[in-house]
């Protein structure tokens, strides 16, 4: 295994530990945040706030470098257009998130603990992903999948 893959493993592990202690793996807390008319639970705000303040500062430092440690170039989403697929996709994702309280990361984290709900949710999520791909019939342009901007 090379250094890039080992770093990705470490990053994933750190991400998983963060998810597990943050409380986001408990969908009741997520729905407690989304349910503004109920007993509001601000947990998610602290998680997202802590994460975004960190990336706001640290991404700036990292992106000031000429290239990543173990790769040729940063792979950042090139598009800055707010188009219909973006808004429609986010809207559909939000409906699913609001229904059960799982977004992809916490669902995968739950899978690691053998959570019975994750065992139902994750295969459905992968199916939804494949359905979208089949309907779109185009290669993916996930964030980070785009070619690096020409230097």
């Amino acid at each position, binding site marked *: 295994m090379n250094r890039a893959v080992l770093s990705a493993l470490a*990053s994933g592990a750190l991400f998983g530990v963060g998810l597990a202690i943050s409380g986001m793996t408990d969908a009741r807390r997520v729905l407690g945040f989304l349910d503004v008319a109920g007993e509001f639970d601000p947990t998610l705000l602290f998680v997202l706030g802590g994460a975004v303040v960190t990336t706001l500062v640290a991404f700036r430092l990292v992106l000031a470098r000429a290239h990543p440690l173990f790769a040729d170039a940063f792979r950042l989403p090139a598009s800055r257009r707010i188009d219909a697929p973006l808004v429609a996709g986010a809207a559909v994702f939000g409906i699913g998130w609001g229904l059960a309280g799982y977004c992809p990361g916490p669902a995968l984290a739950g899978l690691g603990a053998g959570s019975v709900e994750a065992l139902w949710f994750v295969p459905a999520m992968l199916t939804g992903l494949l359905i979208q791909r089949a309907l779109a019939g185009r290669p993916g342009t996930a964030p980070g999948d785009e070619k690096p901007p020409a230097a």
Partner: protein
Amino acid sequence: MIANWPAALGGGILIGLAATLLLWTNGRIAGISGIVDGVLRPRLGDALWRIAFLAGLVVAAGLCILFVPGAPQPRTDFPRAMLVVAGLLVGFGTRLGNGCTSGHGVCGLGRLSPRSLAAVLTFVATAMATTYVVRHLLP
């Protein structure tokens, strides 16, 4: 219910550091839905880092949930049919919109991306509306 905010804040900071580590070493955005997508459509030289990241996430989170005293435990009693419908929508929507809470939320907002801000505002709004309908309007 008063949230356990120090753990939430600490967990959030760890998530931000994890995203920073991936960008710093691999030059990649830590968007979970996008990383999963790349594993399902593997391309030569582009699959191994994704598998390593996801394996690290699943195993480390699982170990924490199972063995760290006081770790928040997953819910177990939600209707199975709802989980399946929600999963389909989350998988479909995150691919159509090119990102989820991690890619658009944690990473996109950190990059001050207008696209990601639009996505985050949209999915938080529809999620809140959905939760309101399910909890307060449906019998």
